[in-house]
């Protein structure tokens, strides 16, 4: 397995977004905790950076966390939609 950054990011993308998924009634997650679709560049950044770009605000809100304390509870992973610039969904025309 590659130990370089790009390889790890590719791995994270696959482990989080691919692979078999089971019905919601069988597993923990999905219904209780939304799936995480990570902006991969930010996956390499720290949590502070994510806060700086306002990408974790909804994450913190429902739990009324004191941002200074930042106590991790049963975390909610938010569906993060990458902004238009970075997610250029374009399909090659073959």
């Amino acid at each position, binding site marked *: 397995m590659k130990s370089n950054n790009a390889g790890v990011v590719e791995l994270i993308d696959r482990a989080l977004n691919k692979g078999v998924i089971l019905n919601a009634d069988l597993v923990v997650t999905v219904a209780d905790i*939304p*799936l995480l*679709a990570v902006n991969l560049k930010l996956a390499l950044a720290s949590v502070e950076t994510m806060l700086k770009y306002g990408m974790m605000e909804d994450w913190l809100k429902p739990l009324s966390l004191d941002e200074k304390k930042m106590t991790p509870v049963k975390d909610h992973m938010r*569906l993060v*939609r990458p*902004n*238009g*610039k970075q997610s*250029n*969904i*374009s*399909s090659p*025309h073959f």
Partner: protein
Amino acid sequence: MTIKVDSDNLKDGLLGLVIALVEIIKEVLQRQAIYRLESNSLGDEDAERLGLAFMQLDETIEKIKKEHNIAKTSNQIRADLDNLVDDAINKLIDPMLLEVEKELENV
């Protein structure tokens, strides 16, 4: 997908949007002019006048961008608009993409 207008300074945000649109319209008109020039429905003299007018418009736009420091904003808006259009066109070409996006929204 959204177009971000900088809400910190709404005036500049709006100005950025207006400038972005003006630039786009100017480019469309410019292309029209070239097309007509090449298909000979626009005479050389008229083309010269039009070209000069576009040049002046360009200079004015650049001046406004400098004075209000909105070059970055309007460029960002242009980029977002480009992506929006790309996205819309791709969805027309490939209906499956539309399905994928709908699915993502349901998660």
